[in-house]
C-alpha cells in the first residue's frame, strides 16, 4: 500500500482541524449574537418601561403630560382590531385553504391562485396600507375607521393563514379520507367531518401566528389613517381608532425622554400580549403532536 497522500499527513491534519475549530467558534458566535441582541433589547425595554407600568397607565387616555398619559384607547383598539380581523380573515383563509387542498383539481386557475398567494406573502405591509387607503377608506367610503383597518389587516394576514392551514390539512393522512369515503360520506362530509377536525390544532397554530403578526403591525394602519391621539374608546366598527404599535410610534417620535418611558412601558404590554399568544400556539402544537397518532 502506498503511504497516505501528503495532504492527509499529521501536521496538515492538525492545521485543518484548527481551522475547523476556529470556524466553529465563529459560527457559534454569530448565532449567539442573536441571543445577545434579544437579551439587550428586552433588558433595555424593561429598564426604561417597568417603572412606568401601573394600573393607571393601562386605564388612562393619551395626554400632553407624559406622566398622565395612558394606553386605554390603544389597548381597546388593538383588541377590537384583532377580533374584527380574525372574524374577517379566519373563515376566508380556512375556506380558501380547504378549496385549494381538498377540492381544486390541477388547473391553470389553481396554479394562478397558488403563485398569487406566494407573491402576496412577500408584498411589503405598507403596500397593503396603500391598498386599504385606496379601496376601503376612499372607494368604499369607510373613512379612517376600525373596519377599514380590520379589512386591510385581514388581507395582510390572509396569505399566512392560507399557507399554514394548507400545511395542516396536508399532514392529515390519505387513509383517513379514504376510510370516510369508503363509509359513503360525501366530499363535504369528509372535509368538514374528518379532515378539518383532524387538522384543527395545526390550523390554530397558523391562526395565532397570523394574528400576532397583525397585533404588531404598524405601517399599514398609519397609512389607512389610525390616529394616535384619541380621547375616547371606539364603540362601533365605524369609529376612528388607534392601536398599541401606533401609540408606541407616536411616543418614540417625541423628543422628551418621559414619553420614551411611556413607549417602553407600552412595548412591555405589547410583548406580554404577543408572548401569551405565542405560548398558546406552542402548547397547542405540542398537544397536537401528542394526541395525533395515525
Amino acid at each position, binding site marked *: 500500500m502506498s503511504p497516505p497522500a501528503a495532504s492527509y499527513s499529521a501536521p496538515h491534519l492538525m492545521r485543518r482541524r484548527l481551522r475547523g475549530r476556529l470556524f466553529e467558534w465563529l459560527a457559534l458566535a454569530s448565532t449567539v449574537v442573536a441571543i445577545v441582541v434579544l437579551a439587550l433589547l428586552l433588558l433595555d425595554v424593561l429598564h426604561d418601561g417597568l417603572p412606568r407600568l401601573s394600573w393607571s397607565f393601562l386605564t388612562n387616555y393619551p395626554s400632553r403630560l407624559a406622566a398622565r398619559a395612558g394606553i386605554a384607547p390603544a389597548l381597546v383598539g388593538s383588541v377590537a382590531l384583532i377580533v374584527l380581523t380574525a372574524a374577517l380573515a379566519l373563515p*376566508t383563509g380556512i375556506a380558501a385553504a380547504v378549496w385549494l387542498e381538498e377540492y381544486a383539481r390541477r388547473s391553470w386557475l389553481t396554479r394562478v391562485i397558488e403563485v398569487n398567494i406566494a407573491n402576496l406573502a412577500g408584498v411589503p405591509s405598507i403596500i397593503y396600507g396603500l*391598498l386599504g387607503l385606496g379601496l376601503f377608506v376612499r372607494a368604499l367610503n369607510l373613512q379612517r375607521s376600525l373596519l377599514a383597518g380590520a379589512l386591510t389587516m385581514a388581507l395582510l394576514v390572509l396569505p399566512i393563514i392560507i399557507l399554514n392551514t394548507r400545511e395542516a390539512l396536508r399532514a392529515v393522512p390519505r387513509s383517513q379520507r379514504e376510510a370516510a369515503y369508503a363509509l359513503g360520506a360525501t366530499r363535504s362530509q369528509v372535509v368538514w367531518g374528518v379532515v378539518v377536525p383532524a387538522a384543527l390544532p395545526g390550523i390554530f397554530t397558523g391562526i395565532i401566528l397570523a394574528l400576532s403578526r397583525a397585533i404588531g403591525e404598524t405601517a399599514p394602519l398609519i397609512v389607512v389613517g389610525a390616529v394616535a391621539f384619541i380621547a375616547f374608546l371606539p364603540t362601533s366598527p365605524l369609529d376612528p381608532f388607534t392601536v398599541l*404599535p401606533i401609540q408606541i410610534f407616536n411616543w418614540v417620535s417625541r423628543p422628551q425622554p418621559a414619553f420614551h418611558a411611556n413607549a417602553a412601558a407600552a412595548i412591555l404590554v405589547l410583548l406580554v400580549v404577543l408572548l401569551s399568544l405565542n405560548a398558546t400556539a406552542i402548547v397547542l402544537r405540542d398537544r397536537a403532536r401528542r394526541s395525533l397518532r395515525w
Partner: protein
Amino acid sequence: MITLPRPEVAAPRRLRARDLRRPLRRTLREWACELPLLVAALVSIFTTVGIVAVLAAETLAFFRLVPLGQFLTDTQWTPLFLEKHFGIVVLLSGTLLTTAIAMLVALPLGLLSAIYLSEYARPGVRRVLKPVLEILAGIPTVVYGYFALLFVTPLLQALIPGLAVFNALSAGIVMGIMILPLVSSMSEDAMAAVPRALREGAYALGATRFEVATQIVVPAALSGIVAAFILAVSRAIGETMIVAIAAGLSPTLTLNPLVPIETMTAYIVQVSQGDTPQGTLEYRTIFAVGTTLFMLTLALNIVSQWVLDRFREEYQ
C-alpha cells in the same frame, strides 16, 4: 319429481349510464358547498388586482402632472416644499443605503448561524437556539425602531463622534438583526435538504467537519441560500418602522451612513401622518413611491423563486 316454484322476480333491467350518475340534488348540494370555498380562494386574486388597480390609478394621475423623466432623473425630493422636486433617486438612495447595511449584518450572521445550527449544534443546543431566533422574528418592527433609536444610536454615538441622532447606520444594523432569522431559517432548510450520503461520502474521504460544511453542504444548498439572500433584500427594502423611527425623515442623496436620510417607506409614513389633503399632487406621491417599492420587491421575490426552481439540485 319435485318442481320448485320459480321465485317471482322481475328480470333485472339493463343498467343504464344514468343510474351510475349521482342524483342531481346531491350534485347541487356538493356544488353549493364548494362555491363559497372557491370564492374565498379568489379573494387572493382580488387582492392582487386591487393592489395593482389602486397603485396604477393614482400613479397614472401623478405622472400626468410630473413627467416620468423628471421622476427618474431629478436629484432632489421636495414634494412638501414650495419649490417641488420629485427625484425618486433620493429616496432610492436612502433605501439602498439602509438595505446594504442590513445585508452586511444579516447575510454573514444568518449564513454562519445556519451552518452552525445545521452542521455543528447538538440537539440540546438547537432546542435553545431555534426558539430564540423565532422570538427575534416575531418582535414587532416598531419595537426594533425603539431599540435602534434609543439604545443602538446612543451606543454608536459613544464610538463614532459626529454620528447624527437619526442615521442610516443604526437603523440598518438593527434591520439586519431583524432579518437575520429569515436568512438563517431559510438557509438551514436548504442545508437540511442536502442528503446525508453526500456528507458521509466526504467524511469517508477524510474531510473534516469544516470542509464538509463549507465545501459540500453549502455548495449543494446554494440555490436555497441565494434565494434566502434575495428574499432578505426584498424584506429590507419594504421594511418601514425601523427606518421611519431611526433613520430620519430628511430626503438626502448620499451614501454617508452617519447622517439623516429618508427611505421610500419612511416617506409614505411621513405623508400619511401629516395633514396633506387627499387628492393633491403631494398626496399622490405616496402612490408613485408605493408603485416603485411594489415593483422592486415583486421583481426580487420573483427572481428568488426563479433561483429556487431553476437551480435546485434534485437528490434521489
